[in-house]
């Protein structure tokens, strides 16, 4: 209703003075014809008044459109929806716009967004419409949708691939590993020293490859074998992780403390895995003094961020991104054992929970790993 009065103010009324009339029609001309929004009045289904922008969007001259049925410019498949939307909007008053396709004079299809409102034109009911060209935005959206779908597909495929190779390679590798071990067991010291050395390298290589494959399998399982999300008490999660790390904690003389921790929405087994990996790392990468680890949590909007702070050897900031890549190691196996898969698994679990992983560190002083989960989020694939 507001629209009606505003529009009618711009149209000359009999009681206006001549100067006023001129001013009003000038103002109307500017607002109407220079508007970047296609604007029109439709009465009995045909255009009564159109501005230049509308004519431009449709590819016609303004006067060509007058008297033509408005729905005729709508793509045939979209016509029914446009009619229904228009009726709904006219009943409810002005609300959000709706999108559909039109055909231009040059037979091009364009996406437009329209809003309509009921007005009076020459004392009869009419519809005031505004329309903008959203073709480019639509194209970008479509492309984004396509890319997202493609990425999801290739992600799933990659996960499946990693799962299948790590799973299926284990069987033949088990043969290699078992029989080299059997050779070592039965023939060690019975052949010459070269043979013993060769066999020991074969045994060692096979064993390392088994561990790599197991870690790769575990990594691929984060996405393919995860459990549905449920409410998880993170203090229980940390307690579970500490129980699993009992031996490492005792041997290193580590002290691990944790604050009051919240309940979050997630996969309990995977959350235990994250805390176990991070606390385990804090203990593993320690300096000469006994490790001290503190677990805390903070909340901002729907994101809960956990921090695992240690007094260990720290990480040079140039590595603060790459340590989360798969099989990334910063030390030789002799210095610190491991496949370099732990943090990649943590990151993947954080991402499955709608969160992220990062680290802040001072080499020689300690590191703080941050790990977040989205409380509002369902699982993100």
């Amino acid at each position, binding site marked *: 209703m507001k629209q009606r009065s505003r529009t009618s103010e711009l149209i000359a009324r009999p009681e206006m003075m001549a100067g006023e009339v001129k001013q009003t029609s000038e103002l109307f001309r500017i607002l109407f014809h220079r508007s970047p929004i296609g604007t029109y009045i439709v009465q009995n289904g045909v255009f009564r008044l159109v501005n230049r922008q509308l004519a431009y969007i449709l590819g016609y001259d303004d006067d060509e459109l007058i008297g033509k049925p408005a729905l005729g410019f709508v793509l045939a498949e979209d016509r029914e929806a446009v009619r229904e939307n228009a009726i709904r909007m006219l009943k409810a008053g002005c609300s959000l716009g709706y999108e559909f396709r039109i055909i231009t004079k040059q037979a091009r299809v364009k996406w437009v967004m329209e809003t309509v409102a009921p007005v009076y034109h020459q004392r009869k009911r009419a519809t005031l419409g505004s329309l903008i060209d959203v073709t480019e935005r639509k194209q970008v959206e479509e492309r984004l949708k396509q890319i997202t779908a493609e990425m999801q597909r290739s992600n799933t495929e990659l996960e499946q691939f990693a799962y299948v190779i790590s799973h299926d390679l*284990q069987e033949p590798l088990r*043969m290699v*590993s*078992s029989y080299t*071990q*059997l050779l070592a067991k039965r023939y060690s010291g019975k052949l010459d020293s070269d043979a013993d050395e060769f066999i020991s390298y074969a045994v060692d290589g096979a064993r390392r490859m088994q561990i790599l494959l*197991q870690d790769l399998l575990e990594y691929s399982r984060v996405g393919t074998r995860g459990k549905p999300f449920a409410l998880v008490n993170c203090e229980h999660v940390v307690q579970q992780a500490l129980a699993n790390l009992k031996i490492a904690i005792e041997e290193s003389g580590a002290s691990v403390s944790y604050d009051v921790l919240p309940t979050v929405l997630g996969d309990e087994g995977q959350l235990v895995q994250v805390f176990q990996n991070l606390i385990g790392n804090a203990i593993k990468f320690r300096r000469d003094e006994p490790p001290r680890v503190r677990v805390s949590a903070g909340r901002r909007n729907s994101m809960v961020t956990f921090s695992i702070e240690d007094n260990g050897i720290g990480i040079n900031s140039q590595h603060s991104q790459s340590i989360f890549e798969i099989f990334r190691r910063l030390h030789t196996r002799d210095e610190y054992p491991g496949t370099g898969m732990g943090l990649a698994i943590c990151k993947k679990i954080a991402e499955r929970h709608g969160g992220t992983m990062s680290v802040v560190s001072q080499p020689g002083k300690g590191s703080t790993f941050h790990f977040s989960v989205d409380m509002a989020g369902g699982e993100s694939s």
Partner: protein
Amino acid sequence: MRSQVAKRPMDILLVDDNPGDARLTSEALKDGQVESRLHIARDGAEALDFLRRKGGFGSAPRPDLILLDLNMPGMNGRQVLAEIKEDAALKQIPVVILTGSREMDDIVRTYDLQANCYVTKPIDFEQFIEMVRSITDFWLTTVQLPMEEN
């Protein structure tokens, strides 16, 4: 009736299409506590022929224990298990599922089919040897099994 005191070698039927695993199993049994004879069937059909003394297995002994792999070409382990447990003459023989799979689905389905136990083949060699020995020790010396009337 056969006496358990007179120690005869125990007969074990291993059903596995992987000759590498079959050999590892026989190596593990060699130094084990139980004196045993290992018979190997390369697939499900051969296993059933052995058990029913058909097609070249006319003089096959009735095994005291069956070690059964799940994933085999042709007739798979689940089908063999189902046949054994539906056969009045065979269903009392303990069947140990010995497989590479640790999928819960496989575990549940084989217990539903009356498997006597389910074991995942350890990846580590020493553990594999240990596993074969503990299974045969348990099934062939610890438990009481019904004796076949001769």
